[in-house]
């Protein structure tokens, strides 16, 4: 037990890359880790359990190559899928030992992200540096569908509101949204292609409301808002977190949250509050943000960019912060973060919020 009511768990020799709360148990957390900061070496999936004695490793699974992401199964409480540096996607069952119950080797390069479908719970997706998103069914030996992005794809996510809408952010500074209900055609289900860095400079006739586009920069993470089905937050190398409204995808960001000193590795919307999100950054901090949508109604004609702000900062990690996730249960505000400092921290956002 660390100070400030913060729980800590060490992952010796393994640098953390991703953390996910179980959607079934409030005391279970999965952590994807890698040796040597993921440059070379093995990977390990930790299954941690929180109890009276703090956090304990309930189980772990070692893999041949680094692990970059993990996603819990939404349909089976004991299963989780991991993204591996050797291009494989592996499904582990906590009740079994050592080996994955299923492994798929289709990606040609590092798999950087996995995401389980929250509505159609028998599907999940993976995205890779090989420029594709692949959609899988745990019971099928091969992928169900491959969506091309033609760019190193750092993150993929399902809409929490639709079984067939999936999104990605890529190295080419674009947010893509695919709708699998659209007929297969030359667009490969692509329905939105949003330049995260902005489009050409423009005004909407209001003085001071000019939007400036910036240089393209790698986009590393994104997340769907849990309450506003059309809102996505993105973040990446240019250190700015942006929110987009897909109803006006080319209209530029709703909010721009600037403050991190280096690239943002991960963003996550609160499961409890529609305007709160967390970020984990290479500046070794995790921060809490309000996107300003509560104080400034979204869609106001003159409100080109909402006034979001940072409302809290957690600086206990001593290396790059790589993963962060909200607890779905209990009182709102609990979250877990991992870092290359080989630590998993579980903490309460409300404890670090500025009064």
């Amino acid at each position: 037990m660390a100070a400030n009511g913060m729980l800590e768990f060490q992952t010796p020799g393994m640098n953390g890359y991703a953390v996910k709360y179980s959607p079934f148990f409030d005391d279970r957390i999965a952590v994807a880790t890698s040796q040597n900061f993921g440059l070379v070496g093995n990977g390990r999936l930790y299954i941690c359990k929180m109890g009276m004695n703090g956090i304990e490793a309930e189980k772990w699974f070692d893999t041949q190559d680094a692990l970059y992401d993990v996603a819990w199964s939404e349909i089976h409480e004991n299963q989780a899928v991991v993204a591996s540096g050797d291009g494989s996607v592996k499904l582990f069952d906590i009740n079994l030992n050592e080996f994955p119950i299923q492994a798929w080797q289709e990606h040609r390069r590092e798999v950087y992200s996995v995401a389980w479908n929250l509505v159609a719970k028998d599907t999940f997706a993976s995205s890779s540096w090989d420029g594709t998103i692949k959609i899988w069914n745990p019971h099928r030996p091969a992928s169900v569908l491959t969506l091309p992005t033609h760019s190193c794809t750092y993150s993929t996510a399902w809409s929490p509101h639709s079984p067939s809408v999936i999104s990605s952010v890529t190295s080419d500074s674009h947010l893509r949204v695919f709708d699998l209900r659209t007929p297969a055609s030359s667009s490969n289900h692509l329905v939105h292609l949003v330049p995260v860095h902005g489009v050409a400079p423009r005004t909407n006739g209001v003085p001071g409301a000019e939007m400036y586009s910036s240089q393209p920069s790698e986009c590393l993470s994104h997340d769907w808002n849990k309450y506003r089905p059309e809102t996505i937050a993105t973040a990446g190398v240019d250190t700015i977190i942006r929110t987009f409204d897909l109803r006006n995808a080319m209209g530029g960001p709703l909010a721009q949250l600037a403050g991190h000193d280096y690239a943002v590795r991960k963003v996550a919307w609160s499961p409890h509050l529609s305007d709160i999100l967390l970020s984990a950054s290479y500046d070794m901090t995790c921060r809490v943000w309000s996107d300003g949508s509560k104080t400034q109604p979204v869609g106001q004609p003159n409100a080109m960019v909402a006034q979001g702000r940072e409302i809290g900062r957690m600086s206990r990690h001593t290396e790059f912060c790589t993963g962060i996730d909200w607890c779905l249960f209990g009182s709102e505000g609990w979250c877990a973060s991992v870092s290359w400092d080989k630590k998993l921290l579980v903490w309460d956002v409300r404890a670090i919020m500025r009064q």
Partner: protein
Amino acid sequence: MADNLCGPSNALQNFQKQSNVDRTLQQDRLISRQSPSQGFRSSPGPNSGALDPEFQAFQAGRLPLGSQQGFNLSHHNQNPQQGLDGPWANDFKRLQLFSQQPILEQTAHQSHHAPNLQSSGWAQDYQQMQGGQRETVPQQMGGYSAYQSFQGPSRMRQYGGPMISGAIASGNSMSQHQAPEMPQEPAFDDAAFAKAFEDAFADAAQADQEQASSQQQSLATGQGSTTAFSADELGRISTEAEYQSFFQTLDAHPMPGSVLGGSVKDYTRDKGLINQEPIGADIIHDPTDKTYPQSEREDPTELSRTAGHLLDVVSESNNDKFANSQFMQLMRQLRDREVEVAGRDMVDTKTGHKIGEESEGIQVQA
């Protein structure tokens, strides 16, 4: 980008919208509106039979529907009343097939085109009816385009390739023979059309060449290129003339499947990414890509360089964390070649030992 907002679109869908335009409904509604003098809907009209001889003649193939000469004659005719005096024409006008408005237009139209040959009167009247009814038909194309519009675009697509090309060519010859008092309509100037087509072909040829050298260039100049007809362009085509020009270009330059998805990759990739250079991870060579030289793929100095670059980036940071960071320490060692990657391990180049603390009990099986 507009189709981004409306969901995916493909060329076939838009074409279908055009070809499915059902003009028969409009005609049925007008034709079924009988003259009030008739007692019964089913009774034959007062002129039933009057048209039969003409129709027989038409069936027998004697009418010059496709005859170049007939059109030219009609264009040169300067006596509008002559044709109307014929008994058949009067009957025809009394039919009241159409509402008053088209009739008026038709009359005005006939002031230029009234037939003087009894043998071709039926066909001419028929064509002018068509011409007057459809205001969108380019008038200088004469009866020919009216006939084509009657056939409908779908048939044009099926059979029309060479024929339509011919139609446009004949349109050119007609414009040369036009009487000087014919009102010029610049919007449908045949010469301008011909020039536009030639320009389009030139652009297309040029774009083809450019595509061979650079895919991006071909997409940028795709406006006039047959290989880059976008869904937007198909959607814009609304008039017969545009159809003709479109299909003519299609026929003249058979596309290697590019409209309907032959170059899927280019279409989706470049929709919003024209002129954007790859950045970040996209410029890292795929290690499995054998097209890059071996030395480049396994350059031992590459990691060292990357580490040095990273250290430069954070060198301005006054954050103590960066000074104490294990990762930054490793980057310094990599930059100075004190540590190298050997196989799957980080190895100290002086001692030859693996570096980094051992993670407890790692047993790699998975």
